[in-house]
């Protein structure tokens, strides 16, 4: 049995409509004003309406043409890269550049299924040292390097 694959074009149309609805929802309490004296949400609402129309047009076009199967997703690659960024963000202000860089590099390396252990250790150490040298010592950026204790 063929598994029903999601069509790229249909998904795109749904996404555009989703963006439009999200915008309308975010703007629900913002006043729109009038044409001669526009309020903060006048043009944003117009753009949101245009998004809905575009999304519907995209859907209509998608249903009238042959489906385009969705591209292959790599949850692993994307997940680890995103996690690497988040890890850096969570660690850097509290625990300093060294801890954040080590964590982010280790997680980023894991995004690649072909990662090798020895290489990973070496790369992590080398990159961390390089970043501290470049950003803190050469470029003189004001970043906490080490965690502060107590």
């Amino acid at each position, binding site marked *: 049995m063929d598994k029903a694959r999601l069509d790229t074009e249909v998904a795109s149309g749904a996404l555009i409509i989703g963006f439009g609805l999200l915008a309308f929802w975010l703007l629900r309490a913002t006043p729109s004003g009038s044409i001669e*004296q526009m309020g903060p949400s006048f043009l944003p609402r117009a753009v949101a309406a245009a998004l809905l129309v575009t999304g519907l047009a995209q859907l209509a076009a998608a249903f009238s043409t042959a489906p385009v199967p969705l591209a292959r997703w790599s949850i692993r690659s994307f997940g680890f890269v995103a996690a690497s960024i988040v890890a850096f963000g969570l660690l850097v202000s509290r625990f300093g550049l060294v801890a954040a860089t080590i964590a982010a590099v280790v997680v*980023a390396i894991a995004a690649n299924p072909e990662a090798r252990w020895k290489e990973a250790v070496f790369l992590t150490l080398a990159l961390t040292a390089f970043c501290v040298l470049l950003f803190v010592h050469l470029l003189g950026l004001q970043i906490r390097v080490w965690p502060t204790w107590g």
Partner: protein
Amino acid sequence: MDVFSNFLLGLSVAATPENLMFCFLGALVGSLIGVLPGIGPVATLSILMPITLSLSPTAALIMLAGIYYGAAYGGSTAAILVNMPGESSSVVTCIDGHQMARQGRAGSALAIAALGSLFAGTVATLVMAFAAPSLASAALAFGASEYAALMVLGLIVAMALTEGSIPKSIAMVLVGLMLGFVGSDVETGSTRMTLGLVGLLDGVDFVPLAMGLFAIPEIIAAIEKPETHSVLSEPIRRLWPTKEDFSRAWPASLRGTALGSVLGVLPGGGGILASFLSYSIEKRISRRREEFGHGAVEGVAAPESANNAAAQTSFIPLLTLGIPSNGVVAVLAGAMLIHGVNPGPLVMTSHPDLFWGLIASMWFGNLMLVVINLPLIRLWVALLKLPYRLLYPSIIIFCCIGVYTLANSTFDIMQLAVFSAVGYLLRKLKFPPAPLLLAFILGPMLEENVRRALQLSSGDFLVFINRPISLTIVLLCVGCVVLLALPSIGRRRSGALAGD
């Protein structure tokens, strides 16, 4: 003449040791990252932009411009050596450039590309110096309605020239406008779409947005693909092109430069359209048509010259009208705004040192590219042999540190993570990201001008067609929409907006 005294001012600004150094650094680092396969100029610029934010506006723009040419030239190097276009405008260079490399003429191909680019850059610099002032003084007559109409025209052309389906390009423009609206409303001071987050009061930050849409998805895409590209194994024997190569290359380079200079000025124009078009022209007029695709030197000289000329003249709309015409220029517009310089016709009078310094530095930048790249070819080959699994963690960590140093704020990094997710989703669904970036820059300016125009006319929409310049631009907009709606032309669009 006035142009010459201004140009001398520019030379004196660009030739200070400090600015020369930033120009050199930009060209070097830009080449370095541009050589890496899959990382295009927009991604390169967004990765490196945080470094330039501590500099003076002039030095920062000079360095960013250097990064841009460096990235573009690095892209050609990768195209010739490994048949992997580092950017979409060097796709054409792959065809004949890599064939030349296969025949042991890699050095010759790289030298022709570099010299052709230098020549094109020199001509384009002169075009800018002469054309920009008159265009800017014409733009001073523009009122709110003209500006609003011009921005809409820019967005329509951007949609028309982008690869991919029209509804998707339109959607990207609309999403970009919407993201540009986030934050405090300038006129009423009330907030909108901030999700109650303090960090969004000043709007969405440009650097995490550009990185998230371009750099991170490009990195993930490169991880997903198994490494298949084979680096040239033959040693590069001679660098200097033969006499025959020269005599065949220079007319092609001349034609490419002329075409590129003109196409670059058009809104939505830029390197890709110019390089594709000049390649097909060369192929059509050549007496050795059968050599194209098998290492014809014209096939390298013409598109490389066209690409570089267009890359440079595409600054003209930004510096004279304040309207970025493609993704790369949008990043530079973002950098100008962060530095407190409003792109537009007033730049020339309010920041003459920046304006003329930037133009003069373009020529220095092109010269430096030749000086940097020809001796460093062996280094680039070595870099291309490094496995990507060692490179990408470095790029990710540079992105993170770069974004963090903007304001030492964790919130900016979280924005990067969110936009990376959005960027990855959009890439998988084949949405073109460049129009989004363009619309994000234009959004707030467009809103301001539309509001002001309608305020002055008490809500009368005729204000957009009552004035001759405004009417002309509106008619151009309508013309573009009609052309787009005609299916035969719509189908033939072949991606001309610098996306990546």
